[in-house]
C-alpha cells in the first residue's frame, strides 16, 4: 500500500477529453501481458481452457475489451454491451476495426410488402464468446472462401494474445524457439508514437496479429505479417476528423495475403473475385484522388483520402506509415499508382453496421437520400435504403460523419475507385 498526499486540481475540459480517449498501450505493451490478467493458476473451480477462467478465449478478451456503461467510443473497448444498445441505438465504439456490437443488431425491412431480416451475424466476424453471449455464425459454418470452422472463431484466431511476432530494427521476427534468441519486445508497435526499436530491441506486431508462419490455429498458417500503424487515439468519432490507419504492403506482407490465411479462395485470381493486393494503377488512383462525392470529381490528391475507403501504401517503412497515421486530418493524401487495394479497403476487420462487415451499405444504390442519412424516421418512403435503421443508426455506422460530407444523393463508395456516378 502506498500513501501520497494530493491536492485536488482542476483540469480543462480539453484535458478530460484527451484522457477519455485513453492511451493505447495499456496492459499488453506489444507482447505477452501480465499472465494473471488472463490466466488464473490457483482459483478453485478453474479447469477452463489453458487455465483461462473464462469459458473460452474470446470471453476472456472481452472481460476487458467490452464494458457496460460506456457513453461513446472508449479507449480499448471493441464491443458495446447489450445493456447500452436498446432498439434504435447503434453500438458506441468507433475503432477502425469496428464494433462487435453490430453482431447483435438485427434489422427488419419491409419493401413493397415483402419483409426481410438482416441478421446481426451478417455484420462481421462472429467470434464465439459464451460469457458475453456471442455465438458462432449459423450461416457461414466455415470461413467464406476457406475451411476454417466458424465454431472455432475467436479473437485468438487472428490475434496472438502472447504477441510473439515482433518488429525489430531490421524487420519482422517471431519469438525464439528453444535454443534460439529473439530481441525482446519493449513496447507496442501499433501506433504512430510507438518507439522505433534500436538494435537488440523489438516492438510488437500490429495489434498482436499472428504472422510469420504461425500455425498455432488449427488448419491455418499465417504466412506474412499485416503491416499498419494506427494513431495512438483511434477509438473516436469521425464527425470532424478521420482516423487514418496507415496500412502498408511489401512482399508477402500484404493484407490480402494475411486475410487469405482463412479466406484463401477469396484471393484466387481465377474465381472472379475483386482484385486485392494489386496496385491501383494510374486510372484508379486518379479516380480515387479526384472523387469527392457522387457527381463531384474535382478532388486533388493532397486531400482525397477517406477512412471509409482506405488503401495500403506500397511500403513497409514504419517511419513513413507513422507519419501518415493521423486522426486530425493533417495528412489526407490519396494513393499513388503503386499503392494497393486491400480487403480492408471495403471491409472492417471486426464488424460494421452493414452486411459482410462492409464499410458502407451495399444493399441499395444510395448511401445518402435527399440529403438525409436514410432511416425509418428520416426517409420512410424509401425503406430499401433505411434497412430498418433509424437515421441516427445509419450515421453511427458511418462513424458520425455529417451527411453534408456527401452528395445529396450519394451512391455507394465503390465509386470512390470506379466513378460510375
Amino acid at each position: 500500500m502506498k500513501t501520497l498526499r494530493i491536492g485536488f486540481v482542476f483540469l480543462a475540459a480539453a484535458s478530460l477529453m484527451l484522457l477519455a480517449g485513453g492511451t493505447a498501450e495499456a496492459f499488453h505493451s506489444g507482447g505477452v501481458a501480465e499472465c494473471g490478467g488472463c490466466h488464473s493458476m490457483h482459483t478453485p473451480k478453474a479447469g477452463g481452457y489453458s487455465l483461462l477462467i473464462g469459458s473460452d478465449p474470446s470471453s476472456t478478451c472481452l472481460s476487458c475489451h467490452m464494458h457496460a456503461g460506456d457513453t461513446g467510443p472508449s479507449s480499448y473497448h471493441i464491443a458495446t454491451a447489450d445493456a447500452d444498445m436498446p432498439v434504435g441505438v447503434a453500438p458506441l465504439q468507433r475503432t477502425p476495426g469496428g464494433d462487435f456490437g453490430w453482431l447483435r443488431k438485427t434489422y427488419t425491412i419491409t419493401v413493397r410488402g415483402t419483409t426481410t431480416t438482416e441478421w446481426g451475424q451478417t455484420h462481421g466476424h462472429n467470434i464465439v464468446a459464451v460469457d458475453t453471449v456471442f455465438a458462432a455464425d449459423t450461416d457461414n459454418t466455415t470461413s467464406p472462401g476457406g475451411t476454417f470452422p466458424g465454431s472455432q472463431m475467436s479473437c485468438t484466431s487472428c490475434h496472438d494474445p502472447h504477441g510473439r511476432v515482433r518488429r525489430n530494427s531490421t524487420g519482422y521476427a517471431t519469438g525464439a524457439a528453444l535454443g534460439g534468441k529473439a530481441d525482446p519486445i519493449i513496447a507496442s508497435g501499433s501506433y504512430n508514437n510507438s518507439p522505433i526499436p534500436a538494435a537488440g530491441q523489438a516492438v510488437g506486431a500490429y495489434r498482436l496479429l499472428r504472422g510469420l508462419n504461425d500455425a498455432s490455429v488449427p488448419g491455418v498458417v499465417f504466412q506474412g505479417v499485416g503491416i499498419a500503424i494506427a494513431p495512438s487515439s483511434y477509438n473516436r468519432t469521425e464527425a470532424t476528423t478521420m482516423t487514418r490507419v496507415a496500412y502498408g504492403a511489401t512482399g508477402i506482407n500484404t493484407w490480402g495475403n494475411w486475410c487469405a490465411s482463412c479466406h484463401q479462395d477469396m484471393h484466387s485470381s481465377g474465381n472472379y473475385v475483386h482484385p486485392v493486393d494489386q496496385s491501383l494503377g494510374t486510372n484508379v488512383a486518379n479516380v480515387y484522388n479526384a472523387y469527392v462525392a457522387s457527381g463531384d470529381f474535382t478532388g486533388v490528391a493532397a486531400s482525397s483520402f477517406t477512412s471509409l475507403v482506405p488503401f495500403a501504401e506500397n511500403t513497409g517503412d514504419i517511419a513513413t506509415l507513422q507519419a501518415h497515421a493521423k486522426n486530425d486530418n493533417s495528412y489526407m493524401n490519396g494513393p499513388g499508382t503503386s499503392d494497393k487495394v486491400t480487403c480492408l479497403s471495403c471491409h472492417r476487420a471486426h464488424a460494421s453496421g452493414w452486411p459482410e462487415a462492409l464499410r458502407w451499405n451495399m444493399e441499395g444504390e444510395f448511401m445518402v437520400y435527399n440529403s438525409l442519412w436514410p432511416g425509418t424516421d428520416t426517409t420512410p418512403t424509401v425503406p430499401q435504403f433505411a434497412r430498418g435503421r433509424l437515421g441516427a443508426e445509419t450515421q453511427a455506422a458511418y462513424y458520425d460523419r455529417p451527411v453534408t460530407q456527401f452528395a445529396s444523393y450519394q451512391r455507394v463508395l465503390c465509386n470512390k475507385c470506379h466513378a460510375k456516378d
Partner: protein
Amino acid sequence: MTLVRRIPSPRLTRATALRVALAACALAVCASGVAAQVQVKYLYNLSSFSGPLRYEGFRVSVDQESGETYLIYQNLVRIFSPSGMETFSFGDDLDLGHILDAAVEGSGNIILLSFKDSRSLVTRCNFRGEPIGPFEITHLPPGLDFYANRMLHRNGLFYFASLASSSVIVTDASGKFRKLIEFLPLLDAEEQKKSGAEASGFTVDHEGNVFLTTPSLFKVYKLSPDGKVASFGRSGSAPGRFGILAGIAADSRGNLLVADKLKCVVMVFDKDFNFVTEFGFRGPRPENLILPDDVAVDRTGRLYVAQWRSRGVSVFALAQ
C-alpha cells in the same frame, strides 16, 4: 480526568516470561493482518413475475433508505423490493437519451444520469419516474465540462464519475459544484501509461472515501476526503489477488466488496485493505458467479452482483 492505578507485576518464571513474550509477538503479528470474518450466504436472484432476470451488463444501485434496488438495462430503470421482486419500471419512453445511472435523494425523488446529444444530463424524477425538472450542475470551474457515466448519492453529496477518465465531480445536494477529483495525475508515469486512464469500478463509502478499481494496474485506489491516496492489490490467482477488476462497493462497516471478472469471485477486504474472503467462483450453481461486474450493497448487508452470461443479478447476505 483518568485515574490509573498501578498494579504490581506478578513474579514470572523465565519459562512463563518466554511464553508471554511469544504470545505477545504472535498477537502483534496477527493484529496487523487479521481481518474480521465475514459470512456470505447466497439468497436469490432478482426476479420479475416472469422469473429471474436473464440479461447481462446491468448497472445496479441501491437506495440505502428504502432498501430498493435499481437496475438499468437498455434505458429501462427497473426497481426491486428488498425481497428481490420487481415492483416498478420506467424510462423507456423518456426523452433523456441513454440512461446510465440512478440515485435516490432524501425526498424520495429519483435522480437519473443520462447521456444525450453528446453531453451528460441529470434529471430529477418523482417516485414514479416522471421527470419533474433538471438537476443542474452549477458553479463548475471555468473550462470544466460536466461529464459522467456513474453516479452515487452519499451523505448528502452527489458523486459523478467518469470511468473513462478516472475522474469524479462532487456536488452538494442541490448540484452545486464542490470539487473535482482526478485520479490519473496521482499515478507515477509508468502507471499512467499502463492504466489507459480507465477505471472499471467506482464507489464511495460512508466516510466519503472514493474508491476506483483499475484493471490494467490490478489495483484499488482510495481517495480520502482529506486528499490522501492509498492503494492495494496485486495480480494473481491466489485468494485476495486480482485478475480483472470490475465493480466495487463498500458496506456499512467499511468492508470493500470487489468483483473480479477473471476469477469470477467477489473479494471482501476490510477497511484496512486486509483480505477477508472471496466467494462465488465460476460454475452453474446459483451461488456461483460468471463474470461478476457491477456490485452494490445495502445497509443491511445485502450484496447485489450483476453478472454476464445471462445470469442477471445474484443477491448475497453478508454478515460479520
